[in-house]
């Protein structure tokens, strides 16, 4: 079992690639890998409530912890009350902790 960290920096309105990237997370979980998704920069916009659910399949599956960067949220005048349920707001310290787990394979998008 691999340990994957997927880092999404873009919103699904910027590129359809974002949806494909999120599908990678689903596929990895399907192959029994451990996957975390960290949303940063414009990536945090995917977690907005009413964002037409780019994260909905992942949240419904309860298989991928989804982390939302608080600095990026604040930079966009957003806070945790603006987000869908099922995501955790955190700082860059969490990203470093995820990144430095033994065997972690990070993927930046």
């Amino acid at each position, binding site marked *: 079992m691999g340990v994957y960290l997927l*880092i999404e*920096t873009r919103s699904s309105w910027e590129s359809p*690639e974002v949806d494909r990237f999120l599908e990678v997370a689903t596929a990895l979980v399907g192959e029994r890998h451990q996957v975390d998704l960290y949303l*940063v*920069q*414009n990536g945090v916009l995917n977690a907005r409530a009413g964002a037409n659910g780019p994260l909905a399949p992942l949240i419904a599956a309860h298989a991928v912890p989804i982390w939302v960067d608080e*600095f*990026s949220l604040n*930079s966009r005048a957003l806070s945790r009350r603006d987000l869908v349920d099922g995501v955790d707001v955190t*700082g*860059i*310290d969490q*990203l*470093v*902790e995820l*990144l*430095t787990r*033994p065997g*972690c394979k*990070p993927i*930046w*998008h």
Partner: protein
Amino acid sequence: MPDGGRLIFLGVLGAPYESELTTTLLRLVNEAIAQGHRVAVYTCGGATELTLKTLGDKKPANFLERGTPGQLTRYPTTAQLIRELLEMAQGRLQWYVCRPCMEERGALSQIEGVIKHVPPKLRQLLGEADVALLMGVK
């Protein structure tokens, strides 16, 4: 580089000013060092200009702040921020600049403390690191 923590390799391949890539990079480096890890950054392409000596220490002042009470906001350049990170890290941060990318852009005047190197070094660093993240590429 001193021992301790894990060795994190960050390859900066994307355009540094097209998004918040540089902000995220500097935040990540700062936090990794604070957590006791070692960091090697390798900048390619336009990212080699983050450490240009000619950027100076600070950006132009915000004129909207003039005449307002209180201390003026500090606006350091990326070169200054990276210089401060190198000092803070006390040897646990190595900042590499891709020499061909740098020369292609005429970004020859680099700040003290960065290491100019050729691309094969990137491969070596990838092999040595505990974890490697390539930033700014799709």
